[in-house]
């Protein structure tokens, strides 16, 4: 006799399953699989290894309804507000409450009902709980094609608006053709004091010798739950760099599933996370080297204050044939209070024998010697701390190639630190 363990469903799980039972969504193989997963496993929780430190059964109190009330007024209101970051000469692609609204600039954009995209992508991350949740509800797919000509600059500008709780499920596929060169800025901004939830899935297919620089800024509102998945496939000699600045949302998880499929791909992932209050901020990476002679570098910095929690999980996988892989991962944290917490989980899974891979994780308070040195030069304690923290985050931001973006990211760090002084 088979024994089934029945866990009590949380209100969020109940709401999700009830909504799925309503139907009305297009049936695709991918969605059926995702729905089956959700029915069987519920929300990802601490019993699932990859979600051990970000237990959605506790952190996701409710599952507000998908946003449907799109009106011209809503779009007009969104357009009257400012983006989290501005970028000159960018093809501006605007999403309001998860839905593609318009784009300006030379770029091919197709927005359509979801087909079976994931099956085509090989579905490398279909088992993930957040991806399943996204696929169960995602309605449309926006596809961007980056031309091979000159360097393209794209701003994916996500804005959330509203006063009542809602959920969004945007899905983007970005196809970067052979030899193309693109800078993609992805910004998220939304209202404070609204318990909205964003479930985003952005997939990059990067063809051989193409070059991508991706910068993500998450300034979701203070009650928001932000789940974000970045899926990346890299062909031979492709270069992919991604930086993420996370300071928004009450609960945030940004996960990157990256695969190098051809030789000599070059990967650089970096990020700075600033968390305070009771924020929970998670970055989870899986860098899967499936082809030989690829290089990957991960560099993450966290500043965690008050009663906030940071999570960094980084897994480097090297397949048996991926010889000559060169991988290095670093995660460093400064805790600013006794009640702040950081969970670091670096992992290496190496099945090839001729590789160079390493990881390092540190966690501590501000360096007393550095502080005293600054004090002895006449710099008051508050200013000295800000100087050191700005420098600490700045070393991650230095990994961003575009100067215009780098400066704005530094301004955001300074703003965050200035708020710390005020409170």
């Amino acid at each position, binding site marked *: 006799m088979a024994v089934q363990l029945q866990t009590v469903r949380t209100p969020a799980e109940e709401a999700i399953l009830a909504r799925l039972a309503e139907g009305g969504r297009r049936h695709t193989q991918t969605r059926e699989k995702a729905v089956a997963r959700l029915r069987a496993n519920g929300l990802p929780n601490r019993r699932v290894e990859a979600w051990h430190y970000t237990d959605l059964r506790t952190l996701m109190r409710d599952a507000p309804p998908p946003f449907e009330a799109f009106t011209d007024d809503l779009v007009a209101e969104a357009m009257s507000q400012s983006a989290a970051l501005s970028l000159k000469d960018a093809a501006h692609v605007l999403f309001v409450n998860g839905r593609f609204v318009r784009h300006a600039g030379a770029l091919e954009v197709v927005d359509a009902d979801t087909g079976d995209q994931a099956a085509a992508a090989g579905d490398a991350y279909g088992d993930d709980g957040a991806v399943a949740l996204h696929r169960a509800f995602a309605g449309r797919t926006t596809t961007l094609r980056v031309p091979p000509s000159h360097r393209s600059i794209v701003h994916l500008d996500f804005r959330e608006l509203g006063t009542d709780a809602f959920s969004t499920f945007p899905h983007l596929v970005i196809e970067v053709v052979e030899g193309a060169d693109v800078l993609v800025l992805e910004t998220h901004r939304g209202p404070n004091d609204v318990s909205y939830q964003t479930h985003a899935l952005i997939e990059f297919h990067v063809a051989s010798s193409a070059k991508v620089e991706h910068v993500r800024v998450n300034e979701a509102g203070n009650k928001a739950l932000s789940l974000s998945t970045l899926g990346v496939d890299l062909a031979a000699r492709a270069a992919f760099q991604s930086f993420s600045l996370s300071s928004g949302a009450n609960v945030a998880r940004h996960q990157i599933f990256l695969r190098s499929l051809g030789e000599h791909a070059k990967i650089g992932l970096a990020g700075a996370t600033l968390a305070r209050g009771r924020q929970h901020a998670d970055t989870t990476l899986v860098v899967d080297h499936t082809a030989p002679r690829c290089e990957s570098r991960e560099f993450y910095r966290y500043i965690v204050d008050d009663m906030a929690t940071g999570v960094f999980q980084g897994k480097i996988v090297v397949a048996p044939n991926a010889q000559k892989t060169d991988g290095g991962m670093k995660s460093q944290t400064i805790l600013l209070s006794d009640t702040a917490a950081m969970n670091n989980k670096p992992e290496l899974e190496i099945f090839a024998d001729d590789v160079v891979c390493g990881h390092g994780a540190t966690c501590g308070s501000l360096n*007393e*010697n*550095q502080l*005293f*040195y*600054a*004090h*002895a*030069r*006449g*710099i*008051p*304690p508050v*200013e*000295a701390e800000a*100087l*050191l923290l*700005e*420098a*600490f985050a*700045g*070393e991650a931001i230095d990994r961003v190639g575009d100067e215009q973006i780098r400066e704005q990211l530094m301004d955001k760090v300074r703003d965050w630190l200035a708020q710390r002084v005020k409170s």
Partner: protein
Amino acid sequence: MLEIRNLHAEIDGKKILNGLTLTVKDGEVAAIMGPNGSGKSTLSYVVAGRSDYTVTAGEVFLNGENILELPPHERAARGLFLAFQYPVEIPGVTTHVFLRTALNAQRKARGEAELKTAEFMKLMRAAADKLSVTQEMLRRPLNVGFSGGEKKRLEILQMTLLAPKFGILDETDSGLDIDALRVVSDGVNDLRAPDRGFLVITHYQRLLDHIKPDTVHIMAQGRIIKTGGPELALELEKNGYRDFVADAA
């Protein structure tokens, strides 16, 4: 003027300074020499205000004001400067940004107007040229990857810019080759002024050939055991500390 009276200090319950008394007048350069473990560096840290040392008795006056109750940055703003034996590396903070932040913080504390970037750069360039500190060094993170000589030159550059009323040089000669020693010493000598005193802490007579002291103090077991003129340093160099320390015990 720096006046230290009967200073007692300890760290982790261990007594390091045992009733140290010392006066350095305006315009005077005083040298402190002493064997390893005599408390020389502790003295510099305690005067600068490092919090891991506990002062159990005594007073330190800078130009008549007892500074022991002041936090380190306020001591600096009142004109105290410590050139570190081991200057601290601060990754991510550009050297010139650090210097400007320090100078403007002190100016602000004294109620003076902060310097604009252009004014500061002019001041910094002039000082840097004298000390053979290159513009490239000033653009690098503070002390990161600097050689021993570069770090010490940068300490003196900071002292030049901050123009303190009193400078303490903690083994500034350690890690310096002969050429660097000369550059650093010239930098210090340039700053000698009738209204500015110096306390030069060193192991060796060598530095005092370049920075000529007015007085020489020998320190052992946390206090001054003998005071004399420059000839005292020469005597030490010849005979070592042993006789002095034995006499004092």
